[in-house]
């Protein structure tokens, strides 16, 4: 089981802030492809990976980075704080 967290417009487009997923995905990229197929909202929110940032267990990662059972995977837009 992987815990997914969404923030900002990724969250509002998908419509949930958090969801759990049983998956065989071994990388962030594979996970993303699986998520894109989940619903129209997912497909729309996650359509452009270049506009997204990814963190696994609160560390920034790339699309090729591994994901493992039990990970917390966050998907969000580039940050705009400060």
């Amino acid at each position: 089981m992987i815990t997914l967290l969404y923030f900002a417009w990724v969250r509002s487009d998908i419509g949930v802030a958090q969801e759990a997923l049983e998956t065989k995905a071994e990388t962030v990229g594979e996970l993303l492809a699986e998520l894109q197929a989940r619903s129209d909202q997912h497909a729309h929110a996650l359509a452009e990976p270049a506009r997204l940032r990814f963190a696994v267990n609160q560390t920034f990662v790339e699309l090729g980075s591994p994901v493992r059972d039990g990970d917390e995977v966050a998907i969000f837009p580039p940050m705009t704080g400060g």
Partner: protein
Amino acid sequence: MIRVQAEDFDLGAELAALREGRRDIGALASFVGLVREMAPEGTQASAPDSSHNGSGEQSMTLEHYPGMTEKMLAEIEAEAQARWPLQASLIIHRYGRLLPGEQIVLVACASPHRHAAFEACQFLMDWLKTKAPFWKLEEVDGKGNWVDARESDEAAARRWQGG
């Protein structure tokens, strides 16, 4: 020291606390970021009034990633401490709904020398902008708009290398 909080902060009290009881600090640089009132849509910033609809009520809501926010701010502060001879440093970042004129963020750095204090403050802000998981939602008359990241902020972060 880092703090992530919904409440406002007292700038004077925070800066006083940073140098409390010390006589070795030569330079104290600080920066406060504030919610800035936007000119109503379709008007020039210089226009005294406008014919747009609605009251123009504005707010800025800061969303963040609890846990990762604190982790990233601590990493950014540690990086500043490693790069400059800082005697004290402070990052406070608020989240939640803020109104124009309210304080969003404070960074402060104390050092024996002014260039170190100034540079470390700028570094903290530049990295914080691009590495700390905060997102801004602007609302005008209840209509929300997620603020886009700016290439100029990315460029500012890159000038410190490793950014």
